[in-house]
């Protein structure tokens, strides 16, 4: 059964990378893209259908990833949707703060696209076998 992902990422090429991984592997999952935290919140609050999983970049203009995460986790309707961080930063503080607020995973984006594709593939296959709350 296909899952619905929300990818929150300001960088267009990063969004392209994610899309390409889904395409190349012929996954029938649905990808919703949001350029930043505000747009993602707009979508989440207006849409009755919540995504199964959120992929979140940390470093974004305006509302950054951690700010978005805090708002999400303080919202009773949204807080059960698992969030996986996709970041270039392996800064200890970022990791710690993310886990404190509440995340389901933290992926450091590798330099090479091949490595990135491998990681995302693993990630999607892992979540495909998970039980998720449906609304």
């Amino acid at each position, binding site marked *: 059964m296909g899952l619905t992902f929300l990818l929150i990422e300001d*960088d267009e*090429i*990063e969004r*392209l*990378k994610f899309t*390409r991984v889904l395409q190349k592997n012929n996954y029938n999952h649905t990808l919703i893209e949001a350029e930043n935290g505000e747009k993602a919140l707009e979508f989440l609050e207006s849409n009755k259908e919540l995504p199964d999983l959120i992929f979140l970049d940390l*470093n974004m203009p305006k509302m950054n990833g951690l700010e978005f995460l805090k708002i999400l986790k303080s919202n009773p309707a949204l807080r059960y949707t698992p969030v996986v961080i996709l*970041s*270039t*930063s392996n*800064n*200890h503080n970022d990791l710690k703060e993310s886990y404190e607020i509440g995340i389901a995973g933290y992926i450091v*984006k*590798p*330099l*090479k*696209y*091949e490595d*990135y594709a491998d990681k995302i593939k693993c990630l999607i296959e892992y979540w495909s076998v998970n039980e998720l709350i449906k609304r």
Partner: protein
Amino acid sequence: MSNELEILQRALQREKAARKQAEQILEGKSRELYLLTQELKDVNAKLEEGLTEKTSELQGVFGNLVDAYVLMDISGNVIKMNHSAEELFGYDINKEQLNIVKLIYKEDYEYAMTSFQELIFKGSFSDYQARVYTKHKGVRTVHINASLIHNKKNQPIAAQGIVRDITEELERKRIFEEQKKQLSAIVENSSLGIALTRFGKIIQTNKAFQNLLGYTPDELLQKEVKNISLKDEYEKSASNMQKMNDGEINNFSVNKRYVKQDGTIFWAKTNVAAVRNEDGSIKYQVALIEDITEQLEFEKQRDQLVKNLEKSNKELNDYAHIVSHDLKSPLRSMNALLTWLKEDYEEILDDNAHNSLNMLLKKVDKMDHLISGILKYASIDKVDHPKQNIALHEIVADIIDVIHIPDHITIEVATELPIIQGDKFRLQQLFQNLIGNAVKYNDKEQGLITVSCEQKEDFWQFTIADNGPGISKKYHDKIFQIFQTLDDKNESTGIGLSIVKKIVVLYDGQVWVESEEGKGTTFYFTLKNKI
């Protein structure tokens, strides 16, 4: 005849009677005389006894008199001395004549003569104080009270004096005065303000105290402690005073403000100590005050500086992360786009294009290494992990496990490696960079890398020796500087050894290199026993 006889006989009778009467009277008188004599004898004996008694009593007084007693005639010839006088002057007048003039200290002669005149005219003098020569004890200072002795016609016949040796008393007084002077020199010249108070009233101050407060000594004596304190602060220290009065504490220290004569205020560290009477009640309080206005100002500035430093340190650290993140993101995009070009247009692109794309990918890779290296270098002393006991042989074993070691290279741990207190991440970096370099640059058919350790006085000395290409002497200092690399291999960023140096320096150690070109290189570094 018979008449005549009778008459004669009667006359005889009368005569006899008269004689008998006379005899009787004489006898009576004699007895009276005898009795009188006896009585006189008794009285005399009694008198003599009394006199002896008095004389010996007086002798006793003389003898036992602690002060010296001297009796002399009007010309100054000593007639009598008691035991103390003999002791003091060292003369025995039974053996040699002594005139009082002989005893007078040369410089006091005039004063002695004036006093003697006074004695003659007034009949006495008291509190005469002068120096005298003695036979055995040298010059002594004595105190004399003297008076004249007159005969019945009120003519002076002798003079007597009570002499007290006050040499030692004077010496004690002098020492006491000297100590007092020394003490007051200390108190007066102390840079600490010192005040003696009783029940909140100032009763003595030193110069520093007067200078600090800007009052004269007399003005201060009119003041109470509360007059020179701020009201609420005075109340605060009043509670300490109460505890002191109650005997709970003997001293306390507060930082409080004082109001100067001109109304300005300064901060002073104040130590108050109790001086107690024998019954434990407070006699005085001694207050020592030290102007700390400047010190507080410095402390404030220092705190501000530290705060600023912390802030800019944090900013720098954040900056390194943000910059590295911002720089890394485009590299990831470039890598993705280049990879896609290769994938999607594999058929169309010729070898030349493929080559160019691969070279581009390599440059992107190197750029990424550089950025990671800078980040690592910047954060090596920023992140402070708690110190742990680190078994270095485990660290080295892990490194050998983790880094790629080609088959022709052998790594040998030649000695035991110690357990060191430190940050695991840093120690790992340290060994990894050195061993990694030795592996990476080795150019021999059979590469050999030896790790060893030697215990010195209070530090460990580690060596990592290889049989690689060696490093020319002119580069021995340069290699530890950031971005300095001797190799143009792609992975070489010139950051690894600068991180090594930074870690060693951070732990107060040293790092240096010995090398012979073509034969190999040995890196040395030291770590303190306790880091």
